């Protein structure tokens, strides 16, 4: 049975996913978790216990900003928005990730 994996794939992957999701649209914590779950076809499930510390860490780093808003279900929620610094960070992370993936692919390719 396919248990949704909660393992952090590699350091920084969660932040990358959050930033990428927020880049498309500002949203609140629950929506963020749901979006990631749905986008990964239920393969990735973000635990709340990981999500919020990560969000606040990013808030502290200045990658995202937050303000109170209203959810689709009309509830008062905190909505996170990616900042200019966050966009830059995302670019950096993505390119670093792609380089890594490239190397990874080559290693795996030579073995097959």
């Amino acid at each position: 049975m396919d248990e949704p994996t909660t393992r952090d794939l590699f350091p920084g992957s969660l932040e990358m996913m959050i930033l990428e999701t927020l880049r498309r649209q500002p949203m609140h914590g629950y929506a963020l978790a749901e979006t990631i779950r749905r986008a990964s076809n239920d393969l990735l499930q973000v635990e709340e216990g990981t999500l919020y510390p990560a969000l606040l860490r990013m808030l502290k780093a200045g990658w995202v900003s937050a303000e109170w808003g209203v959810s689709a279900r009309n509830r008062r929620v905190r909505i996170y928005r990616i900042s200019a610094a966050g966009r830059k960070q995302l670019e950096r992370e993505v390119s670093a990730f792609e380089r890594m993936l490239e190397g990874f692919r080559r290693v795996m390719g030579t073995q097959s």
Partner: protein
Amino acid sequence: MKRLLERLRIRRSISEELEAHLEEKTAALMESGLPEAEARLRARREFGNVMLIAEDSRSSLGWARVENLVMDLRYAFRMLRRSPAFTTVAVLSLALGIGANTAIFSLLDALVWKMLPVANPHELWAAGRAGTSGKASDPHSYPLYVLWRDQNRSIGSLAAAGSFTWRDTSAGSNRAARVGQLVSGNYFDVLGVPALIGRCLTREDDSIEGAGGPQGAVAMLSYRYWSGAFHRDPAALGQSINVNGVWLTIVGVAPPEFFGIQVGSSPDIFLPITLQPLVMAPENLLHNYRNSETTWVTVMGRIPRNVPQTEVRNDLTRLYAQYALTRMNPADQRAFQSGTKPLSEHIVLEPAGRGFSQLRERFSQPLQVLMVLVAIVLLIACSNVANLMLARANVRQREIAVRLAIGAGRFRVLRQLLVESLVLSLAGGTLGLLFAVWSGRLLVGMLPQGPVPLMLDIGPDPRVLGFTLTVSLLTGLLFGLAPAWRATRPAASGDLNHQRTHGAKQSGMRTGRAVVVVELALAVQLLAGAGLFIGTLRNLDSVPAGFKREHVLQLRINVDAGGYSRSQWATVYQQIGERLAAVPGVTAVSLANRGLIEAGVTRSGPVHFPGYLFPPGDNRQLPETYIGPDYFDAAGIPLRMGRTFTSRDGSPSMQVAVVNEEVVRRYFAGRNPIGQRYGFGDSPDQIEIVGVVADAKYNDLRQEATPMAYYPWPQVMPARLNAAVVRTQGDPAALSAALRRAVTSVHPDIFIDARTLTSQIEGSLVRERLLAHLSGFLGALAMLLAWVGIYGVMAYGVARRTSEIGVRMALGAVPRDVVRMVVRESLLLAVSGIALGLPVAFWLTRFTRSFLFGIEPNDPVVLVAAGTSLLLVCALAGWLPASRAAHIDPTTALRYE
């Protein structure tokens, strides 16, 4: 800052955000078809521990330290509020300790340490003259200043300043006595003090002797006088002001903080120094006359750091030699030039950045002694609070053990306890500051007041605030660290179950007892000091003065403002004497050149006594007092031999003298001197001794017997008679108005100031009184604190031992045994403390020797009294808990366990 605030807001609302998340999730689950209860359960199960997540999130946001500190503070306030008795005692004893320190510090700072509010005060130096005796005196004659100013090659600008008094004749001023400064034109320039409004005095302003400068006679006002007389109206500039009969144009106002160079005095007006002959008429101090030289100006300048002082000193010394040479007789000139006779005085440089003060010389040492005493009081207060904290820590052992057990780090708990201490000490410091402001004023009030009020700014300035803050924090660490360390020791708090074990408890008690012993030892020092100072004051109060202190009024008289010439003085003095004698209630009156118990003395020399050979090197000076016929009656000095003066004495051709017994002892080997003649210089037998009177104290009550010769004042005219001694029938103070009227009826501008002899004597004992009263107060405070300390330890001990005492009583001990047991324990503490303290006091008190009179530093009576009184206090402190222990009911006590 904005970001910080935003983060703080986010921290606070994390829980709210997580709840919203849960709600969203539950709603989503319900939308997928689950019933509400199950949806809620599942959401929560999947979510996990909300609290933990919130905590994790917060710590990832940072700010943990600030948050913890806020929590610590909140917790500390809650704990302190919960035990109001402990908090009150601790804060009050700290407030008294810190407040006393702040008060003495602010006084010392204002008087001794603080720099003048001028530019680069460290560069300011004053020229002084040191004689063979080594004592430097600051004032010089004006001609010497001019020579230095115009011809020095090393220091550039030199400024001079001298004081004078004046009567304020402006409307509404009540002819108040005021102080003014006569300053050189470059004074403000050298000090680097700008005018608040208008301009400062300049070099031109003192360029014309007796007239001022091109703009005529000008003046600069002090800020205080400007505020009082002109209500800070800038229109004061250009107006005229009358100073001792001279009209001056106001050109500027000095800045508020500037008070001249005399600490403790605050001149109201600054005038160019060349106006001196006008405002101090008829005296002209700008020139030297014949052989007399009046030294009245302080000379100072700036020596930049790169200029060596020796260069300046040599330069000024060279000019001083030149000056001294012009004033020598031909023989001395020759001797000096041939190098056989060096100058009797040499020039020294003294730092002037702290200004000058006579009070400083008199009070800096006593204040330093008091500083040590208040520091000891603070130490006692600290140990008291430390003890209370220790006892509390033992009581709170369970709470602390729980906190350590559920995972708080030792450092975390330590910090919590320290925060509590600091909250206590800062509260004590704040209260202490109020106490210091109040008691500081009281202290300044205790300092001697002249005819012009003492101006000493001891308000809590940044230096004082910094001192108080530092002392408070150090205090908090001092009394907080040890108990906190102990309380968080793993061994002390490791066992939740056996939190009443004896090991930890006993060692806690031991530390508490040790602290009390130290506290008592410290209290011994204070009590010994207080005993010595109080004894000194009592000795001085009862020392035979040689005159009768009661019923005497001393007048200070100055006839200068009446515009008399020297030749008129004798007539004026005669008139004043007659008018004073005619006042009802006056039994005897005499004018004199000086009052009783006044500083300074007039001397003449070289004196010759028949048949007495002075040892070589003796300067052969004989102190003298000029008096009227009734002087000895007025002062109450008993006649021993011969006669006193009559109104027929005083003719310059038949010179007579009355001498005191010390003259007879010293120069006549105790033989009867009546009819003997002595004299000065070239006429060795011009004066006949007609009487002998008892020795008296002339300058102050500590004085050893000194020779004194009295002359009828008409014999020495023209000379100034600055005092009158008036003996009255009843209360002398009641006559002062009538006497003042009698004097001013001769001329309305004659200056007169009346004081009773007793208050004059009190004034001469200010130092001793200050030390005696304050050390007495501090000693009492120390006793009180020691009492609280012992009481605390004993009461705590009794509470701890309730069950033990219960067992003892169940086994047949009677209340008396219990009382004896507890009191014995407190006495044991007392004896240990005293045994520790007495040797220290024996050693420490030697530093007070110079302040004592008629009592030795290790006076056994004082030391024994200090010990006994502490013993008594301890017995008393032990008694209360003891009697409480005696009333323990065995059955309740045993259940107590």
